[in-house]
């Protein structure tokens, strides 16, 4: 998978209350969640984002609650991938399970500034920042996670596995 988009840039510890405030969790409709994505940290985000844009942030992105609404809101907002130094573990897990590409790459996360045009090649494991001219390599996700994403998310992965076992 390849993506190209404009970057939104945030700092350390972006939490799930900022990604999607709890006051909007009375629905899990992706469109509704996307319409309020990042509202409390960046009021302009929803208006400014375009399909394919990326989010770059620093340490511990997605910390806080287990709400899957957070990666769902980001994905439904049209964001193609999130690049950060590190991710909080439940967010990381949820992103894999729902099929939102996320990349741990501290060097790229430090280099990318708001508004930069960024190219990502997931298969090759590379990120290119057009403004700085720098290219960064990143470790692909663990094979197990890749299997889940290739299957189209955790549910499909689980159902495939159960079908296989039923045949045995």
């Amino acid at each position: 998978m390849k993506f190209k988009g404009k970057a939104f840039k945030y700092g350390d510890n972006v939490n799930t209350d900022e990604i999607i405030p709890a006051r909007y969790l009375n629905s899990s409709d992706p469109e509704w969640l996307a319409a309020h994505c990042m509202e409390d940290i960046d009021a302009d985000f929803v208006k400014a984002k375009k399909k394919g844009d990326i989010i770059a942030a620093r340490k511990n992105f997605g910390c806080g609650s287990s709400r899957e609404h957070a990666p769902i809101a980001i994905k439904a907002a049209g964001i193609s991938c999130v690049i950060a130094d590190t991710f909080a573990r439940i967010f990381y897990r949820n992103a894999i399970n729902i099929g939102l590409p996320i990349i741990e790459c501290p060097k790229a996360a430090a280099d990318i500034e708001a508004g930069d045009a960024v190219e990502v090649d997931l298969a090759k494991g590379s990120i290119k920042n057009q403004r700085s001219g720098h290219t960064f390599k990143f470790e692909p996700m663990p094979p197990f996670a890749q299997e889940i994403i290739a299957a189209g998310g955790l549910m499909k992965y689980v159902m495939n596995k159960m079908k296989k076992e039923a045949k045995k």
Partner: protein
Amino acid sequence: MGMTITEKILAEHCGQKEVRPGQLINARLDLCLANDITAPIAIDEFEKAGAAKVFDREKIALVPDHFTPNKDIKSAEQAAQLRRFARKHQIKYYFEVGEMGVEHALLPEQGIVLPGDCIIGADSHTCTYGALGAFSTGVGSTDVAAGMITGEAWFKVPEQMKFNYKGKLSKWVGGKDLILFTIGKIGVDGALYRTMNFTGPVIQSLPMEDRLALCNMAIEAGGKNGIIEPDEITEEYVHLRARHAYKFFKSDTDAKYVESYDWNVTNMEPQVAFPHLPSNVHPVSKASDITIDQVFIGSCTNGRLSDLRLAASILKGNSVAKFVRCIVIPATQLVYRQAMEEGLIAIFLDAGCAVCTPTCGPCLGGHMGILAAGERCVATSNRNFVGRMGHVKSEIYLANAAVAAASAITGRITHPEEVAK
């Protein structure tokens, strides 16, 4: 080489003799939990996958506690979806409004989560049950959907960290202060992906409700789980309430830890986390000039009977300061009833507190006590992120129930000994 309690529980649940950090395993689950916010997505996924039935109707807990009693039509629709699913699949541990409580207070109290269990919950504070010597961790809704179908979940065996507390706790200091202190030291990602093993003489004599408050906030340091070895205190807590068989696991003396901390906590003051991170921790004496508008005593961290007793011991014969609201929410129906029978509710009412039916309510900015711009709240809950309890320009200070009660009386953040008689 030895294993920790977490490694042993995971090994047993994936049918292996031993597991090591980094290893990917599929573990058998003793319980899958979801609430009125996270269950709807799990149920949608469950149904989209075409699953006909749950793996075990006695190993699923559905607790509508966040926006209940429902605050608006949308949240009522979510709770209705939960109720329909619970009825259709005859889910044993479904708790209707009137028997419901905040999930992480309710499940230990009802003996549904027990030592040696392996538990996932679509709620980050599922790590609370580590206090009982269980492996329990927060996951997302899709994980719970898969868990409800297969009875299993995938885990990467976490690296192990050890926190050893020595010394003697001062009068107004408890589990909440120990965990705030710890997060203040290591930061909100200081235990990212890892297990926090809480040990040492201070933990060995810590009452169960304080242990629950301590493990509750392991996630606030990024931890996958927080855990305490079960002992006599655990046995005393679980033996009368257990609804299934349980098993005590203990860490081997030669278990391996990637990091260890040793702290002497003698003379430690009550701790307060300033806005907007749980790691922004200061001793209460450094906060005494901060005026407040609201106090919230409740939540899965500190809404248990011992917390209400502590708060009542301070509020007794006192009044909440003029222009300050003090909202008390017993975490479960049983806590509510016991507080009533002990006369605590009367003390709160006499002091001018609002006392509500069990719900998460204001903890996540849901309802029952939302903050306006510029307002400050002392809360016994676990998160003080921007906008967590209301307006993005409001502020939350996290503290134990004694500090919260003392602050309600003076209208500023207050050391309990200042007002205690």
